[in-house]
């Protein structure tokens, strides 16, 4: 039984999302921007799972699982792009 109310979990999710946004906006290197995206994605996933718990509907976990797998695939493709960007010098800036 989680003792904390839903708003606590959502607060953590919002905090993760905001930190990820800050990372994306602050960092210029594509690798660190990708880490910011990962943080945002984790915040969204935490919100999904906590809503699944607090509505008592386990199907929400399935949706969150799909999101997790899509995130993993996205990381793989994005890291491949980062490697490609790093192979050609002087063009690594993402803008």
């Amino acid at each position, binding site marked *: *039984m989680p003792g904390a109310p839903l708003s606590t979990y959502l607060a953590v999710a919002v905090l993760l999302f905001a930190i990820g946004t800050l990372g994306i906006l602050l960092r210029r290197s594509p690798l660190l921007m*990708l880490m910011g995206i990962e943080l945002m994605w984790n915040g969204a996933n935490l919100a999904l*799972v906590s809503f699944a*718990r607090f509505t008592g509907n386990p199907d929400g976990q399935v*949706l969150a699982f799909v999101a997790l797998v899509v995130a*993993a695939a996205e990381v793989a*493709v994005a890291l491949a792009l980062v490697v490609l960007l790093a192979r050609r010098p002087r063009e690594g800036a993402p803008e």
Partner: protein
Amino acid sequence: MIASLLGLAGLYLDLHAEFFAAAQVLIYAGAVMILFLFVIAIIASAREPAEPDTSSGPVRSAALASAGLLAVLGLLVIGSVRGWAAPEIAAAWGSVADFGERLLVHHVFPFELTAFVLMAAVVGVAVLVGRRG
């Protein structure tokens, strides 16, 4: 970063999402972070050492935008779901067996879709990086 991901796994356990906690540890704290480290190593070895590090963007506006997002989302959260307590659930709710039954009996199509997405991603990565030009 790894610490935050592991902490998330603990929160999932608290939320009765046992399979999700395990998947979080394996996929994120394990696979994704290792992938990040490998890419960092590859980039660091490919890059000539004299190159200056990537600078930070405009700090003030970024912090402002992020804080604004935090405030708006936080107000929404506090205003909408205050006092929403957890409903009573069965002891087996969210267990691995329950999640597996949900995933493989009720929602087979999304599961197969994730398999397809993963396969497409792997093929795409192979096409992108494996090219020798």
